[in-house]
């Protein structure tokens, strides 16, 4: 029942309808997209966009949506892909893996999308990817999870627009050990995302000659944190924190109240503070601390022309907030991945001469063949290097210091810092 040939499938079903004589005709006709065949050459390329509109990921979803709409507008303004316009088909996944899988099915079989694209939260990606593979629908994710490169997913799932957590974390180790301190206490949420940080960072950091003197796991449902802080050893030089979710402001605030005037160095991941205003009460404690940023939220002094144009296209001001509402802060460190992924879909479709669903395998092969991607309007976050075997991209990471309530970039890692050994070769899997 896979839809290699939508036209044929349509006729079959019509035939079946007649012979069985059941009255489901209206339903079938309304969902089978009449006129699909004739219009194919000029019809828009449809990109199913799985987006977190509701659920815990909704803040990310809002900005993933804006960024993707802006990227599609730019592509269309420049003539579309292979002479065809691009149309985003957004559908809420509820930040839920079951609904995510349903949405991917809808893209493949109902809304007749050419490819699927989207979402951030790892459980939605992992829940959806098997269905994408089975329905042979290319599925481009912007999730930063290590699930793609770990080999857990399949040949139809790619992550070409954003680096994964393993890259990000291990690339931080040299900077932390050379600039902040050798004794690190890690505080992380006690579930898979936090465990990835714990495992990848401690391995990379110990390779740098540092020691992890405590690993403090915070239960996922926790809303107050002070009671955990006494476990921080006295000789701690750096606290590494990666809390996520709505309670993160509480976390920072209570950390500040715990330490008072004297604190160790702090190193954190901006994941926790995406879509959060740095001037929120309680965050003043982060002054002077360091943050990983996938892409610097505040326009830097040496801002590239690409970043400037990208900001303008998406509608983000120099402080990383919406141009129409300064309190509406973006998820700047991640959402560039949507922009870049859509440009890669375009490049892949152009390289493979993509015409329709029959060319999906060719599209994937074209993307797998990609390697170095130069910084530019298609890749405003910076240059990238794609690994076709693991379906994962590698790129520069940024470290910023919080100064005067804004974040200033103090370090840029090399792409080499983010590389690790291949764990899978998807190109050996058949289509």
């Amino acid at each position, binding site marked *: 029942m896979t839809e290699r040939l939508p036209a044929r499938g349509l006729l079959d079903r019509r035939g079946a309808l007649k012979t069985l004589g059941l009255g489901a005709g209206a339903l*079938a006709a309304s969902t089978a997209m009449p006129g699909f065949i004739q219009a194919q050459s000029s019809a828009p390329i449809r990109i199913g966009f799985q987006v977190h509109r509701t659920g815990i990921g909704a803040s990310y979803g809002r900005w993933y949506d804006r960024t993707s709409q802006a990227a599609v507008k730019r592509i269309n303004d420049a003539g579309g892909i292979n002479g065809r316009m691009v149309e985003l088909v957004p559908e809420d996944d509820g930040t839920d893996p079951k609904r995510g899988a349903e949405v991917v*099915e809808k893209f493949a079989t109902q809304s007749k999308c050419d490819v699927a694209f989207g979402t951030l939260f790892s*459980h939605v990606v992992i829940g959806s990817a098997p269905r994408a593979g089975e329905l042979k629908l290319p599925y481009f994710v912007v999730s930063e999870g290590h699930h793609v490169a770990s080999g857990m997913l399949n040949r139809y799932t790619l992550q070409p627009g954003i680096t994964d957590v393993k890259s990000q974390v291990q690339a931080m180790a040299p900077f932390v050990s050379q600039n902040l301190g050798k004794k690190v206490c890690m505080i992380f949420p006690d579930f898979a995302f936090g465990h990835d940080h714990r495992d990848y960072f401690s391995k990379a950091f110990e390779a740098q000659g540092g020691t992890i003197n405590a690993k403090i796991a915070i239960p996922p449902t926790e809303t107050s944190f002070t009671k955990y802080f006494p476990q921080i050893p006295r000789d701690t030089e750096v606290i590494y924190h990666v809390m996520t979710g709505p309670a993160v402001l509480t976390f920072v605030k209570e950390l500040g109240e715990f330490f008072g005037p004297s604190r160790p160095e702090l190193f954190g991941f901006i994941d926790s503070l995406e879509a959060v205003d740095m001037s929120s009460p309680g965050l003043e404690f982060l002054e002077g601390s360091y943050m990983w940023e996938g892409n610097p939220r505040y326009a830097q002094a040496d801002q590239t022309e690409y970043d400037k144009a990208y900001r303008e296209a998406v509608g983000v001001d120099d402080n990383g907030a919406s141009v129409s509402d300064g309190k509406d802060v973006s998820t700047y460190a991640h959402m560039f991945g949507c922009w870049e992924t859509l440009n890669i879909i375009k490049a892949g479709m152009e390289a493979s001469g993509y015409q329709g669903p029959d060319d999906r395998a060719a599209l994937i092969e074209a993307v797998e063949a990609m390697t170095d991607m130069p910084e530019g309007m298609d890749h405003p976050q910076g240059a990238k290097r794609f690994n076709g075997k693991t379906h994962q991209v590698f790129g520069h990471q940024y470290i910023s210091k919080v100064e005067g309530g804004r974040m200033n970039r103090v370090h840029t890692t090399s792409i080499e810092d983010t590389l690790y050994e291949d764990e899978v070769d998807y190109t050996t899997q058949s289509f």
Partner: protein
Amino acid sequence: MGRGLVLHLCTIALLAAAFFVLPAYHSGNLARIMVLAIYAMGYNLAFGYTGLLSLGHALFFAAGMYGLSLAMTHLAIPALPALGLALVAAGVVAGITGALALRTRGVAFMIVTLMFAQAGYLTALYFSEWTRGEEGFVIPQAMRNIAGIDLSGETGRYFAALFLFAVVLLLIGALVRAPFGRTLIAIRENEARATMLGYDVQRLKWIALVVSGMISGLAGAAYALLFGYAGASFAAVPYSIFPLLYVLLGGAGTTLGPLIGAVFMFYLIDLSSGLTDAYMLVAGVVLVALTLFLPQGILGTLRKRGLPWLP
């Protein structure tokens, strides 16, 4: 052959025919709905027939899901024996939970089951080394077949779901007609009287809960097997609420109510998510409207108004 059995067989035949008639999207949905309906049928046995309002069935669903998927991915056990393990896992969890929770009744029973399920959810997160916690994991596609039938293909998946659905439907249909089922209903209607009549009410309730848990676990295992994913979100509170919702909507204590409820709810969410971001709002409105205007659910109301033979 009674009218009830004829209705069940017709339903199964109709579902089989639907695969060839419906567009791919809807037949794909129906495969998933049948799995959810199995879950709701399991829930219905406890809630609809025995009167046990549990808020913790996600624990049994997850026990089945993890029973199968951990065995397949970590122990490389093939799908069919893994399915057996899933049933055992769900049965054991339901047996222990039931033995404890059934010492309580009413509101306390609801809360105890809710808390056991919450503990189960946290346990799935805690052992992330194996479960990958909330992220979950993929069951390798190559392993997802039984007797040469590829369960990851559309046809294999649909008919596997239908097969399991049919088995459970016929089982429940037979069960509720048997003396055992009638006694359960008697317990639901008046527990004191059932005790007085000499029934071992505690034991019967426990058996009902274990069977209910195993059917729920079967649904969890089927989801993992057919859709290739297992994760802790299936152990969380909403998945304890969903079967309650389906059963109430379709009609508690009716054999086909769970299916009707699952179909109705699935499409309500699917269609309303195109209209509004907050599609769970629709679920809320439906729940309130149901309690106000249709307390017996769809089939329960039909049964009351002219179709008294409805199973």
